[in-house]
């Protein structure tokens, strides 16, 4: 009988184990109450303290391949804003973000229709100005006059005919920029919007990018960071708590927290494989020495 070598397991067994590990929490719901990290809480608190009628600019800079991470972030930021009476201007600096922004907005509208508590109106609570190429130029020109950059919304409606845009000219009328991104667009928002115009910037990025933006928290160049599904699940938990305390209903749609449960089991398995791999490596090394 061939000797079992732990460091030479066929990788396909690892894939199958992780697949089953990720599937299990989807079928048997296990939800973990997340520990809220300070960087996520900072974004939540900032939006929570904005007076009703304030305007935030939400930049949808992600692609379809990262939807499980980024879409819940965008939806929860919008939900939080709408609950507080904060209006949202949506734009996109990536080609793919334009369609996904409308998808996220329609998900939020549907969810709020189910609650039946508040009604979100396009043009009053939310407007989507569409995609523009030339990131840095777009960010800089919003600082001068948003009408020059986006004369119409994505449907072609003149920006001057959109009620929520009546008093919005540039960053002076915007309380916060939130960039939800799967690319390096947050660098541009920090460099050109924060450094040039001093508008507060919050960032929500995929987990791959999250580590890059921690240095900007320390320096106060961003007010907070939502990183990957973990950050998204924390924000979702906070928003759901607000919905529960305001309206007494428990949200059924919890994409980020659901993903986080599956992720926790799959990650535990990966840690286990790393430990097993190391045991195999060191025992092999020991055998060679002998």
């Amino acid at each position: 009988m061939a000797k079992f070598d732990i460091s030479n397991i066929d990788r396909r067994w690892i894939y199958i184990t992780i697949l089953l590990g990720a599937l299990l929490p989807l079928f048997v719901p296990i939800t973990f109450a997340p520990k809220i990290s300070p960087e996520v809480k900072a974004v939540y608190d900032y939006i929570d303290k904005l007076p009703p009628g304030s305007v935030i600019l939400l930049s949808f800079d992600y692609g379809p391949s990262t939807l499980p991470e980024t879409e819940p972030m965008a939806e929860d930021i919008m939900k939080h804003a709408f609950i507080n009476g904060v209006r949202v201007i949506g734009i996109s600096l990536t080609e793919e973000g334009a369609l996904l922004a409308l998808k996220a907005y329609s998900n939020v509208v549907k969810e709020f229709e189910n609650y039946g508590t508040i009604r979100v109106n396009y043009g009053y609570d939310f407007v989507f100005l569409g995609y523009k190429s030339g990131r840095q130029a777009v960010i800089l020109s919003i600082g001068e006059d948003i009408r020059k950059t986006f004369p119409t919304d994505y449907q072609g409606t003149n920006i001057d005919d959109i009620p929520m845009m009546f008093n919005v000219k540039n960053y002076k009328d915007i309380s916060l920029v939130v960039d939800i991104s799967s690319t390096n667009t947050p660098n541009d928002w920090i460099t050109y919007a924060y450094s040039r115009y001093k508008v507060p910037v919050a960032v929500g990025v995929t987990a791959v990018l999250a580590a890059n933006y921690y240095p900007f928290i320390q320096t106060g160049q961003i007010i907070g960071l939502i990183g990957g599904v973990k950050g998204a699940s924390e924000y979702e938990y906070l928003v759901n708590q607000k919905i529960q305390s305001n309206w007494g209903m428990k949200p059924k749609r919890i994409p980020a927290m659901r993903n986080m449960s599956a992720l926790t089991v799959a990650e535990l398995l990966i840690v286990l494989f790393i430990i097993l791999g190391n045991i195999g490596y060191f025992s092999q090394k020991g055998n060679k020495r002998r």
Partner: protein
Amino acid sequence: MAISSSIWVWIAAFLTLAVFSFLYKDNIIYKMVEALFVGVSAGYSIVIILKHSFVPNIWKPLFVSHNLLYLIPFLLGLLFFAMLSRKTAYLTHIPFAFLIGSGAGFALPLVFQTNVMAQVKGTMLFAPSHYPSLGAFINALIIFIGVLTVLFYFFFSRGEKTNRGIIVKTGIAFIMIGFGASFGYTVMARLSLLVGRLYFLFGTWLGILH
């Protein structure tokens, strides 16, 4: 929930499974889907850029409103096509010069301010009383030691055989922790994409998940 009756969901499910088939081994269906992805992405980008960039920024002002000022960027843009022939390729230097010149002019002061000045300021260490809590001071101290030791590692270690001092070794430890954190985040990111696809396959497509 029942199995999806949408043809688009079925196509998406087939494409997802075709990509997953690579996990077993490389195959022709995976390669076909990979090529399809590249083609669709390129096509989508071209249409979006034409619709949202070329038409409103060049076509309408120049050919509808007849604003001749826009002739300058239009001609500069056209010069990029000169690279299609070796004889005329040198003409691309002109639009590139504009791009690099204006880009550097815009970027240099702000990028330096954002990535160097503000970061150096954020690394400076003050007396403990300057910080809101002891934890904040300890964090600042760790960042201070990390930045200094990593800089030492890059500037004062010469090759593999150098006898590395404690400062350089600490720098290496900080770099390793940084790599570890990035790797951990990367694993999390990839797994979340897997979970998203699983939810699509078992929920949207097969209707087993709610």
